[in-house]
């Protein structure tokens, strides 16, 4: 248990309480900073607001990030997303195709690993959101004005892919 003061309020926090507070929630889009909790990336302010009940205007991203790293969560800065929609050149097509599913593919596949069995919306190598149904995915994209390159369920095995092919 770690005692910390945020926006004039004192909280006793521990990692398990933070993880529990995120149950049933979906991470919002990552613009710059994120923390890793339960194998997913979360905006620090979203997490701290859920845990403390504070309004997000009451603290900064850096305060949230510092509080969560004190609890042992990894924090990092997201790489800027490439723009794939500005050029019609062959080079842009190749770059876009590479970014779409990853070249040589290892990176994008590894990004999907925590979400095996779940629906995901991806953009390049980045998993925008993962959820239990396409409805949740579509709703999240609309709510956060995000555009995915691909939505699918990460298959559990070769059989789950082959199961859709004619027998």
């Amino acid at each position, binding site marked *: 248990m770690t005692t910390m003061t945020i926006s004039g309020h004192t909280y006793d926090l521990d990692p398990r309480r933070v993880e529990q507070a995120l149950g049933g929630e979906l991470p919002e889009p990552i613009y710059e900073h994120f923390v890793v909790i339960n194998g997913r990336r979360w905006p620090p302010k979203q997490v701290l607001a859920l845990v403390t009940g504070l309004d997000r205007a009451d603290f900064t991203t850096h305060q949230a990030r510092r509080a969560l790293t004190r609890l042992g969560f990894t924090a990092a800065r997201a790489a800027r997303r490439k723009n794939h929609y500005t050029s019609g050149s062959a080079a842009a097509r190749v770059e876009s*195709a590479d970014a779409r599913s990853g070249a040589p593919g290892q990176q994008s596949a590894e990004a999907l690993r925590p979400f095996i069995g779940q629906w995901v919306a991806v953009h390049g190598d980045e998993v925008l959101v993962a959820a239990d149904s396409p409805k949740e995915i579509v709703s999240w994209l609309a709510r956060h004005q995000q555009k*995915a390159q691909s939505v699918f369920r990460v298959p559990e095995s070769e059989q789950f892919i082959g199961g*859709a092919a004619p027998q």
Partner: protein
Amino acid sequence: MRFRFRALPAATGGLLTPRPVIDIALEGLEAAPMGCLLDSGALRTRMSAELAPLAGIELAGTLTERFYLGGLETVGSFARVNLTVTDGAEQFTWEAPVWFCDPWPHPFGLAGLEGFLQYFIVTIRAYNEYLDVEPNPEPQNA
């Protein structure tokens, strides 16, 4: 338009065999193009029926067919819809017959002959793990 095969993780570690997957956006769901497995052996283009109401596609009273897919009995409901495919640099939109299926436990939709392949010239470079998709200048009346 070029699409690299989809790299996927294996639950047991390592990777699954990369597959030819094309992202097809239903009209109304442009922000969420659905990954569809390219399947030259499939007559129809099929997607989950869950997607139809999300795109505002009315399936009540439409033509249906009952079939087996991967040993699972499924009912497909027919609709003609506008579809869009893009590689980020180019895009192509066409009206196509799609069968919205319930249940659909599969991870991807199916891009088959009717609805997809009849509208495109597809070159598969399986060794190099990518495919090129170009609109067919003489699409069949599907």
